[in-house]
């Protein structure tokens, strides 16, 4: 049986003036797949992500989410997508319960259904006690957890996460990761994650795509991509792509291997 991907992007390019931020990116995500979109600063991750979310229009290429083509079907496509960014706050003059209810409304859920989904989401992540707190009073970890609840209110087929565990304590990062794995496993939601924390990505994602200078330079399981670059883990790949020279004793290769030249 042919599987309908939740997201398909072909030949995405985007330039800002003389700078080519994204140069011919192809991406396909299947239902329930957990994909990490990685790369050093300036690799084109954020631009790619924002194009996939319809917030930036690509110069060329096509994007299909479910059966909806961007940009024309942006609103319909977004009804199948949830978005969380670790750096984005929730509306600060709203209580958590109210903010979730508002986003549920934007997703087309009536007040009763939205409130029920919000309560269930808070319960699922063990943060029901935050319901009456003002969004501006949340810690960064609480904000991320509430942000995930916001993004899954409408049971999306694709959850896009930009730096979800950035600057979180390990225990909170663990709760976030455990929650995301649960969403993927039980709801069948595909995850598209960008992160600079390679160890986090290895735990969370079954597939990674590395970007460098706006192009895809690697696509596969974390282990296969690391091996293709001659490293024991993704951090070694990241450092190579970032052009960082690392002393042998400072490499983060947990299997004891040392960094080598990248194969590209």
């Amino acid at each position, binding site marked *: 049986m042919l599987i309908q991907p939740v997201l398909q992007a072909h030949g995405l390019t985007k330039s800002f003036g003389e700078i080519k931020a994204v140069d011919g990116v192809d991406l396909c995500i299947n239902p329930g797949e957990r994909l990490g979109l990685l790369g050093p600063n300036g690799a084109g991750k954020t631009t790619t992500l924002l194009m996939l979310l*319809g917030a*930036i229009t690509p110069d060329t290429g096509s994007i299909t989410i479910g059966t909806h083509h961007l940009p024309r079907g942006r*609103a*319909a496509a977004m009804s199948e997508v949830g978005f969380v960014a670790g750096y984005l*706050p929730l509306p600060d*003059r*709203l209580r958590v319960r109210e903010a979730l209810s508002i986003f549920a*409304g934007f997703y087309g859920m009536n007040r009763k259904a939205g409130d029920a989904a919000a309560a269930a989401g808070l319960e699922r992540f063990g943060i029901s006690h935050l319901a009456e707190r003002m969004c501006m009073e949340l810690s960064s970890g609480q904000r991320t957890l509430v942000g995930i609840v916001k993004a899954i209110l409408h049971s999306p087929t694709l959850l896009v996460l930009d730096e979800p565990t950035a600057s979180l304590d390990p225990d909170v990062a663990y709760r976030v990761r455990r929650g995301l794995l649960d969403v993927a496993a039980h709801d069948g939601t595909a995850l598209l994650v960008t992160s600079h924390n390679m160890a986090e990505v290895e735990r969370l994602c079954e597939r990674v795509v590395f970007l460098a200078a706006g192009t895809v330079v690697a696509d596969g399981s974390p282990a296969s991509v690391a091996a293709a670059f001659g490293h024991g883990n993704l951090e070694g790949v990241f450092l190579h792509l970032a052009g960082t020279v690392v002393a042998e004793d400072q490499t983060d290769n947990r299997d004891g291997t040392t960094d080598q030249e990248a194969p590209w």
Partner: protein
Amino acid sequence: MVTAANDRLPFSWLRVRTVVRRHRYVLFRSPHRWFDLAFWPVFDVLLWGSLGAFVAQQSPTSRSTTPYLLAGIMLFQVLMQSQIAVATGFMEETWTRNLLNVMTTPLREIEYVIGLALMGMLKLLAAMTTVSITAFAFYRFGLGEVGFGLIPIVGVLLLVGWSTSMLVIGLLLRYGQSAEILAWATTFAILAVSGVFNPVESIPGPIQPIAKILPTTYAFTAARDLLDGGGVPWATLGWAALSGVILAGLSMIYVLRMLKVFRTRGFVTRYS
């Protein structure tokens, strides 16, 4: 095969109502915003009403000055509140860095704007209640003196308020938060050049051509004609409506173009 119809999400009043609810929460949690509805309008009425009363005392032939000034400032509230509510509603998303969160939901642009406009109507109702009570309490003046002609005048002013808010949002999309000052400046520019309190002929000659293309000039002129006891000045109101519709069309074209520029140039990163 994906059809075009499948790509279009139908218009939803539920999402419109949700926009209203979102901004209602913000209003109730932001006492400083009540100043726009319950504080400044009182002082506007006191300022212009007292000025009119003074002029009337100095010259018995100028007894219509107070109604002119009060009607002008009260109708100006219609223009200002409708414009400010929509523009600041959008700015609220930028101030709270919520724009990307909103843009990545199924909320359509038209639903968002209609929601802000409806919220603006609620704020306008509050502000008009304030100025009406103040004007009647201190000067025994009510906008009812304008008669039924008030309805099309208010309609034109609402249209202009919403149109100028679209221009402001277009500028914000294109130039970022540095354009925020224009949210307030545009209405006061209109106040100055469209003869809110005075006939066009009393505006300096070089500025009169600008006044004559503004729908607000005809709306305020019609209000004064009605206060003078004349019949409904349909011709003046017709010009007001026609120029208002043209302004609305131009402002929609402008904001849609700026939205396209916003997405093409990736300006959303300014707010994330």
